């Protein structure tokens, strides 16, 4: 008798939104008025709704349908991890726009409990998201294969993952603009 247990993985949640048409419509009103800019510290990677990440597009633009949809996904994610869901706040959210040649360097979202992305405008070859192992010692080990995990997602999909998980986005090789909404969630620490 032999068995191999896979221990201490990092969960990645993936789902299509239910209320796709309404959510797309909600985002379309926001996207058209955004003066996208590049973060001067990042170089030529991609365009952002605000380069300092200190704002909250979802709250500012009252993206209520998306917020409601997101809540159900967060609850489902937590339930599956046997984590008792609690109140949370979306502490920041922003839009990322990728023109031809744009990409996102490998980064994490710091102390965010859950980070996520919604794919508003996406087509094939416009840059897949990829994740990097959070266990560097496994990457430098001779007999363990831990390459970047690349994910091909579709427009209307939502990803959720722990903020510590490093990720990046491959180069957009198409003429099409790729647009996604990213956000960081923090669970409420103090309950009145």
């Amino acid at each position: 008798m032999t068995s191999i247990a896979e221990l201490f993985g990092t969960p990645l949640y993936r789902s299509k939104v239910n209320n796709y048409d309404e959510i797309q419509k909600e985002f379309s009103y926001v996207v058209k008025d955004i003066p996208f800019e590049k973060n001067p510290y990042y170089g030529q990677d991609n365009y952002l709704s605000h380069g300092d990440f200190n704002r909250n597009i979802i709250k500012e633009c009252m993206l209520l349908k998306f917020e409601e949809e997101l809540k159900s996904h967060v609850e489902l994610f937590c339930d599956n991890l046997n984590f008792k869901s609690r109140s949370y706040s979306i502490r920041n959210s922003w839009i990322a726009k990728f023109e031809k040649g744009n990409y996102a360097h490998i980064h994490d979202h710091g102390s965010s409990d859950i980070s996520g992305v919604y794919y508003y405008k996406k087509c094939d070859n416009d840059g897949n998201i990829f994740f990097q192992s959070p266990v560097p010692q496994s990457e430098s080990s001779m007999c363990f294969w831990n390459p970047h995990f690349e994910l091909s997602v579709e427009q209307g999909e939502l990803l959720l993952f722990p903020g510590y998980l490093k990720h990046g986005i491959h180069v957009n090789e198409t003429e099409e603009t790729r647009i996604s909404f990213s956000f960081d969630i923090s669970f409420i620490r103090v309950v009145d």
Partner: protein
Amino acid sequence: MKYAIKDLYPTPVYFGLVEDKDEIQKEFSDCIGEIDFKYSKSFGQTHHLSDPTFKEHLFEKYKIKKFVDELQKHLGAYMSHMGFQLSGFSFESSWISLYRKGDYAHVHHHGGVDISGAYYHKINKEEGDGQFFFTSPNLALDTSLMGKKFGGRIPVPAEEGALLLFPGWLPHGVETHQIDSERIVISFNILVQGKMMDEEMLSKLYK
């Protein structure tokens, strides 16, 4: 709602039972009688070791052949699972840990070796037998609010004749042994030779 949750970057741990248990148990029983177990001075009063310096090689010193032959099969299966084409291996070290009442093993890893392992020679089925456990190799899993639910310690059920293989970098320890009957575990570190499958084959394996 249709959704999927993928477990990214888990650590594979191998568990197997040896086929030739009686012979292997005898092989170790014969050498255990000759050993003067001691605490490691640098560890303090943790658990008794056949060689507190970890410089001796138990398998060579006592000509442990049956176990090594058996181990080779398990190591091959473990490596195949990970997509590593094993062409050879060598032992970096091997020793015996003996737990008397009050003994334990602090959380540690085995540094730069490729594979570490444990063979359970004497285990007690009663409560209080020091249980082997792994801790997360991903510190962020333990320190994030959500992550600590699925990080933390994972206890490993023990059985006489069972063999455990895991990456040398995976932290582990043994809880305090609380009963009078001794607990004896054979430990070893392995360096492997070989290469990973090409990326196309690996992609199929991991799909």
